């Protein structure tokens, strides 16, 4: 499992560049391997897509952030949000569909825990494109400077 050995360190997110950004969200970091980019099957792509959709919402990110500190009962989790239990439940279901949450039923209680594996895929995606664009901008600089040098 790619995420297992990663050091997960909070890092400030690029706040202000994301339309829905609230307070700076911490970022999943770590030395990422890129399993999904070498043999990316359609299933994996769809799964990743669901994960991205789920993470696109600030409330859902807040739910995950809460669960990253420990498992929680649905009722306790909902109590921490100003929106209705019904709304929280919808967000929880979206996170479950994305494979980001696990639900255990213990008697009458539903206990939620975070499933970290898909987050490692997101970190891989971010890491892949960060490297890609850093490389492109470096090559853009080389290209433009070379062109200027030739012209002189």
């Amino acid at each position, binding site marked *: 499992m790619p995420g297992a050995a990663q050091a997960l360190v909070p890092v400030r997110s690029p706040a202000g560049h994301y339309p829905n950004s609230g307070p700076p969200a911490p970022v999943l970091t770590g030395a990422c391997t890129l399993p999904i980019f070498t043999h990316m099957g359609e299933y994996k792509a769809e799964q990743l897509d669901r994960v991205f959709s789920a993470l696109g919402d600030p409330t859902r990110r807040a739910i995950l952030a809460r669960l990253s500190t420990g498992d929680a009962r649905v009722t306790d989790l909902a109590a921490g949000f100003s929106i209705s239990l019904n709304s929280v439940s919808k967000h929880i279901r979206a996170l479950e569909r994305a494979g980001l949450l696990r639900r255990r039923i213990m008697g009458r209680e539903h206990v939620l825990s975070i499933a970290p594996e898909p987050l490692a895929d997101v970190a891989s995606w971010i890491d892949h494109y960060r490297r890609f664009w850093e490389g492109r*901008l470096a090559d853009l600089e080389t290209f433009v400077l070379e062109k200027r040098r030739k012209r002189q």
Partner: protein
Amino acid sequence: MTITIAPPIVVVRRRIPAPAAELFEAWLNPEAMAQWMRPSKVHRTTATVDARVGGRYEIIMEMESRAIPHRGVYITIDPPKRLVFTWHSPYTGGRDTLVEVDFAASGDHTEVVVTHQQLPEDERTGHNEGWTSALEKLAQRYGKS
């Protein structure tokens, strides 16, 4: 266990000692793109560009075993300050993503900022929705205000 959560977004910036106009031009010129849109494992890049809002581009990156197509549509073309386009490749889960490029001149340097993100669910090209309307929505939200 400490797990932290990020919105799916990549922001990369670079300060380059060249005028914004020259850098901007290199983003829309197929011959220029063939050279700098070429990661180290890619032995050849070919690009076709229809450089107008609503126009399409295609960048094919040829690797040893396969060719990787990147395609999209221009949302905003505002030289030499801002360029916004969709980005679709095998690495985007078969979906459109959004790339915004901002060029900020300062002295004889230009800071180029690339913001690459997933599109929110409701702004994707829906199956039941015409491309034009999706493009308009995108332009409204990400285009020049």
